[in-house]
Structure formats: structure tokens, C-alpha cells
């Protein structure tokens, strides 16, 4: 019964999220919006890499570089981390300070986690469109090294699902912290997403970081998620990248796929327990300090 109720809450929250995301405009404009944003983010990296090649005078082609494929795939899937983390924390701020409905949602006989995750689910769906468009653009226009014939589909799909679950769990913790921060505290998701961006080997291998930072990288689940996604989606480019350097360039070369998956699952479970604790604690403090219907719109 409780599961049925939670599923209904999840479904209705997802529908509400979709209405809030998409009903402000006509479908064509929404589609344009959904395409332009991820592509522009990707083009920043593309041009940065073009500038590097042009100023180095190496005469190398961008498409020939396994590093370019490494960076492109990492950046495409990082959209999930950025958008889902932003989406979950924004639910709290938007409902509390903009629509001022958080208190009504709170006193409704529903599971609040199911509500937040339902709102996040629609973010995942919209981001998936952005990720797909980015990857297709990369393969067709920029020669990113993804060969559908050599993709390790089972490994890729399982990694994707486990990683997404992990991101949602982290989002829940940030959602809890959002209870206690003012409107400008939305920067928290930008910041946490930034931690992953710099420390998880999203756009450059973690071996480029100082040794102490590499140790931090190796406890972040996103590091293993990115590595697993790349190995699943573009095993050839990953092999080429490893062969181009005399050392273990990714810093994770010694781990096989099974170990990567195991680390991903275990770290997700650990973060799940931590996130739940953070959310509950923040919720308690927010209620004690009367912050559930707080507005800070200065």
C-alpha cells in the first residue's frame, strides 16, 4: 500500500516537474532550449581544445586524439551530475520561495523523498535528451571515437543506471542542506558539481591533479562512474589513450570492469546512508528553526 502511494507521489511529482519545466513555451522553443544549452557547454571545451592544438603547432587533428574522445564523453555525461544536482536543490528553493508551496507539500500525506525524486526524474529525462544530442553531434560533426559496434552495452547500461541512482542520492543530501540556506545558496549545487568536475576525471585524467587530490578523487563515486561509462561506450579510444602515455594516465588502469562496478555500487550504498542522514538532520533543524516557509529574496 505504502509502495503504491509512493509510486503515485513519484508519478505526480514527475508530471508536475514536467509541467513546470516545459509548459512555459511552445514545443519548438523548448526543443531549441534543450539543444542549445548542452551544445554550447560542449563547444567551450571543443574550442579550448582547438586553441590548444592551434597554438601548439603540432598539426594534429582533433578527431584523431583519444584524449578528445575522453574529454567529450566525460563532459556529456557530466550533464547528469550538474543538472540533477541542480534540479533537486532547486525543488526546495522554488517550492519554498517562489511558489511558496513547500509547506503544503510537507503537510500532505505523501512521502517527501518520493516527491523530490519524482521532480528529479523529469530532470533526468530532459538531461538525457541533451546528452544524446551532444553525443550524436560529437560523433557526426567532430569525429568523437564512439563505434556502436564496439560498445560494451551491458557494462555501459548498468554503469549508467547505478551512477544515476548515485547522483539522485547525492542530490537528496544537497536538497536537505538547501532547507538551511538562503536563495543564493543555490550555489551549493554549482559547487558540489564543481567538485566532481575537477576531482572526478570528467574532462581530464585525475593523474593531472596533485597527489593529495588524486586520493580524494578515488573516494568519489563519480570518478568510477565516468571511467566505467567511457570504458563501456568507447573501449577503443580508452585503449588508445592508455597506449599513448608511458604511465597509467587515467589513474584507474589497474582496476578491471568488475572492480569498477563493485566500487560504484558500494560507494552508492555508503552515500545513500550518508545522504539520508544529512537530509533528516537538515529537515529537523529547518523545522526547529522555522525555515520550511522561509523567504530570502533580497
Amino acid at each position: 500500500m505504502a509502495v503504491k502511494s509512493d509510486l503515485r507521489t513519484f508519478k505526480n511529482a514527475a508530471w508536475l516537474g514536467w509541467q513546470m519545466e516545459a509548459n512555459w513555451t511552445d514545443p519548438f522553443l523548448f526543443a531549441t532550449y534543450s539543444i542549445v544549452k548542452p551544445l554550447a557547454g560542449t563547444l567551450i571545451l571543443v574550442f579550448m581544445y582547438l586553441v590548444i592544438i592551434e597554438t601548439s603547432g603540432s598539426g594534429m587533428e582533433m578527431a584523431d586524439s583519444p584524449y578528445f574522445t575522453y574529454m567529450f564523453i566525460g563532459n556529456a555525461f557530466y550533464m547528469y551530475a550538474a543538472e540533477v544536482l541542480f534540479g533537486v536543490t532547486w525543488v526546495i528553493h522554488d517550492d519554498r520561495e517562489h511558489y511558496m508551496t513547500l509547506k503544503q507539500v510537507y503537510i500532505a500525506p505523501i512521502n517527501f523523498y518520493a516527491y523530490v525524486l519524482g521532480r528529479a526524474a523529469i530532470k533526468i529525462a530532459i538531461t538525457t535528451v541533451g546528452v544524446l544530442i551532444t553525443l550524436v553531434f560529437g560523433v557526426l560533426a567532430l569525429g568523437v571515437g564512439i563505434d556502436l559496434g564496439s560498445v560494451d552495452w551491458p557494462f555501459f547500461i548498468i554503469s549508467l543506471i547505478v551512477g544515476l541512482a548515485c547522483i539522485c542520492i547525492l542530490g537528496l543530501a544537497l536538497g536537505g542542506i538547501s532547507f538551511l540556506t538562503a536563495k543564493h545558496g543555490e550555489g551549493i549545487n554549482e559547487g558540489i558539481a564543481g567538485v566532481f568536475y575537477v576531482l572526478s576525471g570528467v574532462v581530464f585524467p585525475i593523474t593531472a591533479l596533485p597527489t593529495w587530490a588524486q586520493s580524494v578523487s578515488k573516494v568519489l563515486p563519480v570518478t568510477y562512474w565516468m571511467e566505467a561509462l567511457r570504458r563501456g561506450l568507447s573501449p577503443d579510444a580508452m585503449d588508445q589513450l592508455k597506449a599513448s602515455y608511458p604511465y597509467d594516465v587515467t589513474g584507474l588502469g589497474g582496476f578491471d570492469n568488475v572492480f569498477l562496478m563493485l566500487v560504484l555500487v558500494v560507494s552508492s550504498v555508503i552515500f545513500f546512508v550518508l545522504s539520508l542522514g544529512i537530509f533528516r538532520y537538515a529537515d529537523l533543524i529547518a523545522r526547529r528553526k522555522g525555515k520550511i516557509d522561509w523567504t530570502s529574496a533580497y
Partner: protein
Amino acid sequence: MSDTWLMRNLRAVNGRAYPRIIGSKREPSWLFFDIVLPLLTVAAYAYIYKFNNAQEQFIGYVVLGGAMTAFWLNILWSMASQLYWEKEIGNLQLYLMAPISRMSILAGMAVGGLFFTTLRATSTLVIGIVVFSVAFTLSNPLMILVIFVVTMIALYGMGMMFASLYLLFGREAYHMSNLMMEPVYFASGFYFPVKYLGFWAAAGASAIPITLGLDALRQLFFAAGSGDAFLPVETEAAILCVLSVVFVFLAKYSLDYMERLGKTSGRLTLRWQ
């Protein structure tokens, strides 16, 4: 222009700037979220250049660009979408009833926003310089000041204009701000010199004041910057002066238009549409 009118509007500027400045003091968590955490994105871009053994000045460009993102984010989220947000929470009608110029309200927002945004940008710059050992040069500090000031006037003029337009967009305001982040980071060359986009693309992007402001600052801060320049600094300064006048004028015009339209269509107090 009577002294009373002037004083009233100066008080309005002060009054609107006050909650932004004092608000940031009362909720200091932003110091961590807005200063320390965004540095990480800057670090990621810097490491891309570092990993690929790019020329040294590119890391400096990233640090400078990362610092300037604070101003663009402030324009989008605390200027452009602010009147819409004020309408949503019921303050807009109070502003319109007050015997003051609407421009004073927007100017107050800009002054208040500039305060903590400058703090954030300066912190990013200083920490970036220290962490990545970036070699900045200060050969022409007066010109740096001139470029910064005209860029800010043009940029906040643009933000004031957007504030009125966003009111017309309604709920699209949030999406518009979201949409104008990465595309503008890309087109304005926040993380790479804009000249690499090609002349016409860079010329088009110059309509956004921060494009030329950044290009000029890169030339002034880095010895090798002139090699990556789109236009000479003096030309960019002149264009920025023109943009400042144009955007402030357009801000006034669009504000009057929005108010007139809002009153005739009865939507000024209508929320959640």
C-alpha cells in the same frame, strides 16, 4: 530637476542596494558557496590547459574568465530576473507606487549586486593567481580601471534592460537565464580568446559587453595577451562606451514600455504566469 526629486531617487538607490549588502552579511553562507566552490570549475578548465601543456597565459585567461563569470551570473539571476521575482513575491507593485524613477530601483539592485559580485570575482582572481601561479602584469592600471568601469556600466545597463524584458517573458524568465549561461560563456570567450571563433562570430558576440571587456582585460593583464586579441584595447574601450549609452537608454525605454504594457493589460500584479 529639483533637489527633492534627486534626493528621493538617491535614497531609493540606497534603499534597494541596502538589503543586498546587508542581506549578504546576515547570511554569510554565500561566502563559501559563491567564492570557494565556483573556483573548482575554473580549476577544471585550468587543468585541461595544463594537462595538454598549453601556453602559460591560457591558464591566466581561465582564471580571469572564471572571475568575470560572477558578473554575468549576477546580471542573469540578480538583475535580469529580479523584477520578475519581485512581481512574484509582491514587491513590484510597491516599487511602481513609490514616487521615484524605476531606474533608481534597478540602479540600487546593480549597486548592491556589484558589491558582493566584485568581492566574489576578486576572490576568484586572487585565489586563482595564487593556486595556479598565474603571472599577471599591471603595465597600465588606469586603462584596466577604465575598461572595467565601462564594461560594468554597459553590462549592468544590459541587465537593467533585461529586467524589463523578463517581466514580459513571465515564467520563461528562469529558462532564459538558464539558457544564457553556457552559450554566453562560449560566445564571449570566457575560457579561450574570442578571436578563435572567427571575426564575424566574435563581432556578433561583441554585442554582449563582457566579450570586449574580457578581451581588453586579457591584453592588459597578460604580456602575451595582445597575440590573442580580437581588437585593440582603445577600439574596444570606445565600443564599450557606446554600448554603455545604448544599453542604459534601452533600459529606460523598455522599463517605460513594460510598465505601460503591464498597466494596460492588468498583469503587473498577476503572479505565477
